[in-house]
């Protein structure tokens, strides 16, 4: 009789311990420090100014010309996964998302970006992108992905929707590039 009560008690304790262990396991997994370090660097200026002039209206009665584009390397982006070991410099896959955060913008204005080259690297890396313009939204969208350590990925920006029907003033927005471990 006593042995049965003791064994039942032991079983009860084991069940409680198992649940407790499971609880701490979950805590441990989600609080595990991330061992991945990386740098996403803007090697160019972090400000782009589109210069729009009255002469961009080529004749009375017309609107502004349609699009305004930067040079094809207005933004230079570097992806450096640390530590600089063989896996990170050559095999580690990643992706870069893009979105915009409006500071003072107008709904008629649209921004587009495209990658215009594969950057440069001392390692055997790759970059996947169709090099076509994509419109930047107010939420993250995949911009391009790749592997390894790549510097100076050239990016071009295009502004469209400029019009005289939009109030004449300053507008600003922020392009946010987000590096994710893929």
């Amino acid at each position, binding site marked *: 009789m006593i042995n049965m009560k003791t064994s039942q008690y032991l079983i009860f304790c084991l069940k409680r311990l198992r649940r407790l262990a499971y609880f701490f396991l979950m805590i441990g997994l989600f609080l595990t420090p991330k061992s991945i370090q990386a740098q996403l660097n803007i090697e160019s200026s972090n400000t782009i100014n589109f210069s729009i002039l009255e002469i961009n209206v080529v004749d009375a*009665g017309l609107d502004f010309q349609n699009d305004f584009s930067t040079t094809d390397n207005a933004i230079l982006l570097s992806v450096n996964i640390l530590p600089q070991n063989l896996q990170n410099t050559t095999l580690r896959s990643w992706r870069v998302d893009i979105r915009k955060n409006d500071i003072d913008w107008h709904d008629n204005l649209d921004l587009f970006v495209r990658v215009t080259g594969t950057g440069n690297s001392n390692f055997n890396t790759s970059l996947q992108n169709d090099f076509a313009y994509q419109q930047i939204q107010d939420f993250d969208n995949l911009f391009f992905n790749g592997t390894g350590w790549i510097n100076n990925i050239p990016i071009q920006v295009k502004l469209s929707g400029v019009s005289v029907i939009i*109030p*004449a003033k300053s507008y600003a927005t922020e392009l946010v590039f987000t590096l994710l471990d893929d």
Partner: protein
Amino acid sequence: MKLSILSTFILYFVQMHSQIIDNKSVTINTIIPEVALIDIESVNQSVLLNLQPNNNSGEQLNTSLVQDNSTWINYTCSLAPNSPSKKISVQIISGEIPKGTQILLLASNYQGSGIGNHGTSSGTVILNNFPQNVISNIGGSFTSNGTNNGHQLNYRLRIIDYGLLGFEDSTSITIAFTLTDD
């Protein structure tokens, strides 16, 4: 319990699979300038008002056909948020209207393929050396280019004193249209 543990590990690896490592931003600035452009579009740059003699003596001269609708005003206008709307005024800047006559000018309301807040006709004016409004309340807009776009200009000749008419008189006058703040 096993299902819970399995779910936990699945969620953990999903979290680890696409985790944000870093993000950087680039600020995009643009300034849309105020624009005020005006142009006269016509097949011929000059307007001809030719008063023909009457074949029946004693009758009034027929001026109903002495008019010209061949010219159009085109404009492009961009306004800052707190700027007033714009107007177009007209005045004679050289030459004199033949004695005993008046030249009336009426700008039509907007027609064409442009976009925006176009101005409205200010009604018929009698041309003189002082600026008079022919179009008012122009907001951010463009009329589109060429004839059949913008505001059609109707010039009419009116006889006010037969005693002053000189049938050998032929004269040219130059008029100027000016786009200014309302």
